[in-house]
């Protein structure tokens, strides 16, 4: 057939529309600017902004798995917080074992200890994710109500098991020597660990984007989010793909747990459940199932929390709810609504 019949049909959205399409990306710098105006002092602002980015990226790490899992199989895991807590406890246990490495002045040993803690925590939470998917989630596919209830039950049991294994008290571990203290940039003090957190977060985001955009698995995940049936009809087992994504998401939650734990230096069995509030807000803001949306939502929530924590500490959490409300009024499905072919 002739090309002429085809050409005219390619539609380029008008410039204005494409701008609006990209608008969510602009929100992050816009919020940072607003923060600068509200905070006033640039040095304080820089400290807060780095803290906000670090917090946002950690939330992103924990939330990304949840959102992809939802996109792929329409499963919302209210027990996701359990992986965060377990990851933190496993990671801290490893750090305690490696006490010699963490207290040594050698940066290399310090980082190795953190790396080991992260690795073991991710392994443990990935395995836990496997068990969770098989035992808790699989029997209730397609039934949202039961899913919410059962995964909530899973969360309770997991939290209680943390008490059984690690005792009822909170756990305290100091950050390794070289991750303590701050850099001083002009008048601003920026905690070293926050920079490390930002670094890990950015690297992970880039890696995740690469996997999703350029590997076959990533393509399958994106295709599956849009139309799982068609992926099956092409011959791929979406269930198995889902299990892999679920485990990866659990491992990321575990990683987030270790990072968050090191950030606070104190962890409790409930920490996951508490962070889940922010995770849910982020996932809703971003649009259920969207990784990009989740990323932007996480940065927004991280920045806003830190600015308000400085300006009006009592309303920090409420302000993120306010942000969610505003964004949902603008886009009822979140920043990047996921197209579902159904």
């Amino acid at each position: 057939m002739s090309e002429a019949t085809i050409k005219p049909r390619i539609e380029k959205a008008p410039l204005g529309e494409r701008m609006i399409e990209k608008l969510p990306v602009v929100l992050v710098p816009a919020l940072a600017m607003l923060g600068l105006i509200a905070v006033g002092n640039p040095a304080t602002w820089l400290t807060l902004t780095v803290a906000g980015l670090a917090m946002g990226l950690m939330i992103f790490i924990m939330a990304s798995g949840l959102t992809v899992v939802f996109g792929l199989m329409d499963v919302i895991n209210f027990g996701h917080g359990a992986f965060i807590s377990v990851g933190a406890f496993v990671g801290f246990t490893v750090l305690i074992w490696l006490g010699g490495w963490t207290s040594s002045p050698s940066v290399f040993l310090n980082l190795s200890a953190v790396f080991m803690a992260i690795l073991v925590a991710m392994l443990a939470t990935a395995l836990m994710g496997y068990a969770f998917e098989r035992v808790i989630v699989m029997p209730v596919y397609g039934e949202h109500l039961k899913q919410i209830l059962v995964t909530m039950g899973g969360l309770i049991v997991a939290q209680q098991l943390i008490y059984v294994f690690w005792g009822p008290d909170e756990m305290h571990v100091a950050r390794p020597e070289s991750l303590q203290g701050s850099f001083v940039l002009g008048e601003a003090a920026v905690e070293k660990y926050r920079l490390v957190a930002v670094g890990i977060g950015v690297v992970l985001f880039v890696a995740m984007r690469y996997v999703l955009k350029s590997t076959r698995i990533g393509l399958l995940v994106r295709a599956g989010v849009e139309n799982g049936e068609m992926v099956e009809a092409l011959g791929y087992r979406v269930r198995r793909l889902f299990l892999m994504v679920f485990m990866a998401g659990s491992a990321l939650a575990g990683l987030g747990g270790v990072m968050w734990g090191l950030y606070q230096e104190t962890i409790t069995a409930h920490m996951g459940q508490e962070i889940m509030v922010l995770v849910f807000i982020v996932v809703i803001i971003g649009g259920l199932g969207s990784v990009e949306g989740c990323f932007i939502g996480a940065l927004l929530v991280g920045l806003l929390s830190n600015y308000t924590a400085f300006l009006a500490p009592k309303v920090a959490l409420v302000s993120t709810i306010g942000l969610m409300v505003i964004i949902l009024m603008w886009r009822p499905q979140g920043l990047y609504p996921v197209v579902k072919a159904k």
Partner: protein
Amino acid sequence: MSEPLLQLSGVHTHIGPYHILQGVDLTVPKGGVSVLLGRNGAGKSTTLRTIMGLWTASSGSITFQGRDITRMETPAISRSGIAFVPENMGIFTDLTVAENMTLAATKGPIDPKRLAWIQELFPPVRTFWNSSAGTLSGGQKQMLAVSRAIVESRVLILIDEPTKGLAPAIINAMTDALKELKETDTTILLVEQNFAMASSIGDTVAVMDDGRIIHDGDMAEMVADKELQERLMGLSLEAHQ
């Protein structure tokens, strides 16, 4: 007529509380094009989806190449050599045309010769190779959907209304492409409402109504028998006019 490639006997399908297929008996012979006609809501798409395992038959049996596939899962059915072009085309709009094609090639990288042939059949697949599939027009999406189904050689292709909502010129192009595909030893089960198109390409024909097959036979016979057409037309084809 050659041996049956695909055979449905007494297939019933329930969707939730609704009893949609009520004992479908359908035989698709090896080679050539079998056409499935029927008015809107007759159950044609449900039949194809049941063959693919996207709905599970509640009773009856489906055999493909002598193997019972009634209870098999969709991916296994697909890998046994059946490709599917669903009614909504199932394009991954978030992916590029190239990525859509790559995913359809499950046995390894796409064979360049075959790709060239496909792009010959459907030029937009070449023109928009690196574009996002979401930006394609309806007709181009349909071409991509068929291309995806034939990116590797398949035994049987199920195509659900490939001419739905297309301009006449594109319908002709699609018909030509399917005719060429027919020459390649691939069997096609085609759901169609456009009788002109269906009769120009079909070898056998079955007509559905209310979840059952109410007629089946050779297409030539049906084309010749105006009275039969009239009778079935009233049931199945008027909806399209």
